[in-house]
C-alpha cells in the first residue's frame, strides 16, 4: 500500500515544532477500541504500514482496523557524503504528524482482550508511547 498524498502543492515542507496536545481526532470515532498516542512525533508511512500488517496477521479475517492518521508531510534528506549547501535535499519519506492524544488506529468487532493484544503488537512498531482507549458513549 502506498501511503503518501496523490497530489501536493509543494514537494518539500519545513520541519516545524509539534506544540500542544491534540484538539481533534482524540476520541474513538469508528470502532470500539483505539490506540492513542501519548507523545508528539512523526510516524512514517512504513511504520503505519508495519502496524497494519501486524494487526491483520494477528486478527486474520476477524474484526476491522481503521487507520486514523495519514502521512501528509514529506521529509527530505541530503545524500550521504555530500558537502553542505547546494539547496535542500530531495523528499525521502512521508510522515504523519502526531500530537499527544491523537488516535492512530482503531479496532472493532473483536473482544477487548484480543484488541489489546493486537495493539500491543502495533505499539512495538511505533516511535511514540501509546495506550489503548475505549469508546465513550
Amino acid at each position: 500500500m502506498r501511503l503518501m498524498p496523490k497530489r501536493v502543492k509543494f514537494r518539500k515542507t519545513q520541519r516545524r515544532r509539534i506544540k500542544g496536545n491534540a484538539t481533534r481526532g482524540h476520541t474513538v470515532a469508528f470502532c470500539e477500541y483505539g490506540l492513542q498516542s501519548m507523545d508528539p512525533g512523526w510516524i512514517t508511512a512504513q511504520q503505519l504500514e508495519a502496524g497494519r500488517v501486524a494487526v491483520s496477521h494477528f486478527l486474520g479475517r476477524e474484526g476491522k482496523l481503521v487507520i486514523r492518521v495519514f502521512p501528509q508531510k514529506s521529509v527530505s534528506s541530503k545524500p550521504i557524503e555530500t558537502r553542505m549547501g547546494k539547496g535542500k535535499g530531495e523528499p525521502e519519506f512521508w510522515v504523519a504528524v502526531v500530537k499527544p492524544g491523537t488516535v492512530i488506529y482503531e479496532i472493532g468487532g473483536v473482544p477487548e482482550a484480543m484488541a489489546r493484544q493486537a495493539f500491543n503488537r502495533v505499539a512495538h512498531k511505533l516511535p511514540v508511547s501509546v495506550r489503548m482507549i475505549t469508546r465513550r458513549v
Partner: protein
Amino acid sequence: MDNPVLQVEKRTQLGSHAARRLRRDGKLPAVVYGHKEDTLAISVPEKDFRTALQTGAKMFRIHCDNNEQDALIRETQYDAFGIDILHADFVRVYMDEEITLEVPIEVRGTPVGAAKGGVLEQIRRTVEVRCLPAHIPEKLTADVSGLDVGGQLTLKDVRLPSGVEIAHGDMNTLVAQVRLPMVKEEAAPVEEGELAKGPEVIVKKVKEEEVEEES
C-alpha cells in the same frame, strides 16, 4: 432514584485564566441554560460531579444561592486524553415535561451468524429518545442472538422501557448487522520508479494572455 445534588457557586470571573484557577482548586466551570431564562455560569465540585457521572447519572439537582432547579447534563468536555473533565453544560428541565436526549444502545448476545464466520458490526451506537426526566433509561438493549449472516437489526427491534419512545424519525434505521468479513484485494505492487517519482505537484496555470503581456 433521586437525582444527585450538586452544591454549586455562581462564577463571577469568566475566561480561560479564571477557569484554570477553578480547576486547580478542584472545581469545574459549568453553565446552566434553557427555558428562556438567563444563562448562569457556575462552578461545580469536580469530585462530586465525577462520582455522579460514574454512577450513570444524567439528571442533577442544582443548589445555587438558596435556589434549587433540576438540570439535565447536555455535554461534558474532556481533555485530549479523555481523563480530566474540563467543562460541563446543564440544561434546565421541569420534571413533568418531556425531554429529548441521546441514549446509548447496547447489543447483547452472540449472533448465530458468528459461528458461520460472520462479524457483528454495530452501526448505530446512540439513539434520540423522548421521555419524562424520571424515566430516563441508562441504556437501551437490543438482542442480536437471532441474527444470521446478512441479518440486520433496526430501531424497531430495540427493546424500550415503559414511558420511553424513540424520537428518531425513521424506525427502519440500521443498528447492527452480521456480515462476512470483506477480503481486501492485495494492491498491485508499485514500481520503484513510480515511488521515487513522488506525488504530482499542483502547478498554477499561467494564462497565456499574461505571458503575452510580459513579453
